[in-house]
C-alpha cells in the first residue's frame, strides 16, 4: 500500500479523515465537526494545513508525484452568477475530480469495498472488469460510459449462505445440471458503515450484477457539491492554490 505509513491510518491523536468505513474513522469524523480558524496563520501555513487534511482523505494511497501529474489547473467553469439560479458552491470543490475517475475510487464510491485500500486490493487482485475485460490496474482512468463490474464473491458485505452452498454442491454433483438455481448471496452490512453509504451523482450502480457505469466527470451544480468530501470547498480552494503554485 503506497501511503504515508509513518502516520497510522486511523490515529485518534492526528484525527486524519480517510476513505473508510472504519469505526475509528467515523469517531474522528464526529469529533472534527467544526472547521478550524486558521486566519492567524500565514498563507502558506493555511495552504499546507488544507493540503494535508484534504490529501489524507483524497487519494491517501496515491503518491505526491503521481498526483502532481494527474492534477489539472484548469477547472470546469460554470455560470455561477446568472440571475435567478441558486448559486453554485466554489468551483474549487472539484480540485480532486481527476481522482474520481480511477478504478479503485469507483469501486469504493459504489460501496463494493469497505475502504479505498480494500478497493485497491480488489482491483489489484483481478476481481474487477471494465466493459467485460479484466483490468487489474487501480490507476486505470475510466472513460465516460464505461461499465465497471466487481465479482460478487469478493464483496465483503455479501456472504455465501449455507443453502446456496448446498445447492451449488448438488448442481455440480449432478451430470449436466443447469446452473442458475443457486440462491443469491446474503447481504450482511458492516457495523458502523451506514453513515458512509451513499452513491455520488456521477455514478449509476446496479447492485444485482455488482456493476457501475461512470456517467461523467463531476461538475459544478447549484447548491451542492458532487464529490463526497468531509472538507468544505474553502479548504479545497487552499489545497488547489498549493498545487497550482507548486508545479515543478
Amino acid at each position, binding site marked *: 500500500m503506497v501511503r504515508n505509513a509513518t502516520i497510522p491510518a486511523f490515529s485518534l491523536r492526528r484525527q486524519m479523515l480517510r476513505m473508510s468505513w472504519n469505526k475509528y474513522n467515523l469517531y474522528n469524523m*464526529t469529533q472534527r465537526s467544526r472547521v478550524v480558524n486558521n486566519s492567524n496563520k500565514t498563507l502558506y501555513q493555511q495552504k499546507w494545513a488544507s493540503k494535508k487534511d484534504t490529501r489524507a482523505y483524497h487519494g491517501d494511497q496515491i503518491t505526491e508525484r503521481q498526483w502532481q501529474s494527474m492534477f489539472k489547473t484548469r477547472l470546469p467553469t460554470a455560470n455561477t452568477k446568472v440571475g435567478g439560479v441558486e448559486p453554485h458552491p466554489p468551483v474549487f470543490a472539484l480540485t480532486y475530480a481527476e481522482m474520481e475517475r480511477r478504478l479503485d475510487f469507483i469501486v469504493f464510491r459504489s460501496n463494493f469495498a469497505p475502504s479505498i485500500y480494500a478497493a485497491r486490493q480488489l482491483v489489484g487482485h483481478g476481481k474487477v472488469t471494465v466493459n467485460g*475485460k479484466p483490468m487489474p490496474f487501480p490507476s486505470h482512468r475510466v472513460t465516460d460510459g464505461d461499465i465497471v463490474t466487481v465479482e460478487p464473491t469478493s464483496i465483503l458485505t455479501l456472504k455465501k449462505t449455507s443453502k446456496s452452498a448446498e445447492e451449488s454442491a448438488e448442481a455440480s454433483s449432478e451430470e449436466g445440471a443447469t446452473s442458475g438455481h443457486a440462491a443469491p448471496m446474503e447481504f450482511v452490512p458492516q*457495523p458502523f458503515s451506514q453513515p458512509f453509504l451513499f452513491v455520488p451523482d456521477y455514478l449509476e450502480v446496479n447492485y*444485482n450484477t*455488482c456493476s457501475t457505469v461512470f*456517467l*461523467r466527470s463531476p461538475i459544478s451544480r447549484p447548491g*451542492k457539491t458532487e464529490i463526497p468530501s*468531509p472538507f468544505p470547498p474553502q479548504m479545497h480552494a487552499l489545497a488547489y492554490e498549493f498545487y497550482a503554485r507548486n508545479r515543478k
Partner: protein
Amino acid sequence: MSSQLLTRALGSAKATLRAPLITSIPTSQRLFHSTRFSLNEDKPEGEEGAASEESEETPVNKKLPFRRRNFHKWLQGEGSRFATPSFSGPNYIGESPFPMNPLFKPTPPMSNHAKEEIYRLHRSDTTKWTPRQLGTKYNISIKRVEAILRLKHLEKEMVASGFVAQENFTRGMEQLMGVKNERSAAIVEPLTDILPQVGSPKFEAVNEDKTFTAEDAANVLKRRPLAEIKANLLEQERKNPFKLVDSVKGVAVKEESVTKPVSKNSAEGNARFKFSFVDTSKKTTLIREKDGTLLQVQQS
C-alpha cells in the same frame, strides 16, 4: 528489562475492545520454575487469574490513554446508533454525512423497480421510448437513462447465462440508503449538461439603438450559438438512435458490417493479407479480400 503486562479485557461489555492478552514475566529473573504460567496450562483459568491479579496490581488499575477512553465512551453513548444498521432509511452523522461539509447532500438513487420499468418501456417500443423521452418522464439525464438501460440489458444477459442476480444486496442497499419508490424522492437532474468554457469576460461596444441577439454574442465570443448546439444534439440523436448492444460476458459483440461487392480481380489477390482502404474525405471504405474480391462497406 522488558516488563509485559497481563490484562483482562477492560470496560466494554459489548466486547468491542480487543485488548491483547500478554503473559507476564517477573522482572528480576526468568527462571524455569518461575515461568509458572506455561507449566499451569491445564489448570482452570480462575485459579490462574486470581494468582496473576494478586501479583500484578498496578497493570490492572492502569487506565487506557484518555483518547481511547473517550472513544469507548462515544461508542457506548452517541456512537451506539451506528453499530447496527437501520433498515428504515439513511443514518448519517447529522443532516449531511460530513459535519464540516454541509454542501454535500447525497440523494438516494433510483429504485430497482423504477429501473426495471424504464427497461421494459424501452424494450416495448424503441422508437417511442427513446432515452430522451424516458429522461423527460423520470426527470433524469439522458446519460443516466442510457446507463440504466445498458446495465439492465447486461443483467438480463448475465442471468440468462447462469449468473445469480444479487437481489438481497439490492434490497439491503436500498433500505440502508433510504431509496423510495416515489419519483420525487429520487435524483432529479437536467436532460443534458451543455457547459461552455467560461473564460475571462469580454467587452464589446454596441450601438444603443442596435439590437444584440444571442447569435451576435456567439459571433463575438467565437463560439457556436446555444440554439445551434442544441439542434445539433437532436440531429445526432435522430441520425444515431440509442441501441442496446448485445454482449458476451460483458464484452460487446461487434456487428458485422454490410458490404456490397464491386468487382473481382484474382491478380490483385494476396495470400497473407486482407486490405482495407478508408477514404476519410468521402467517408467510404473499400475492402480487398485475399482472393481478390473488392467490397464496398455500406454501413458498419
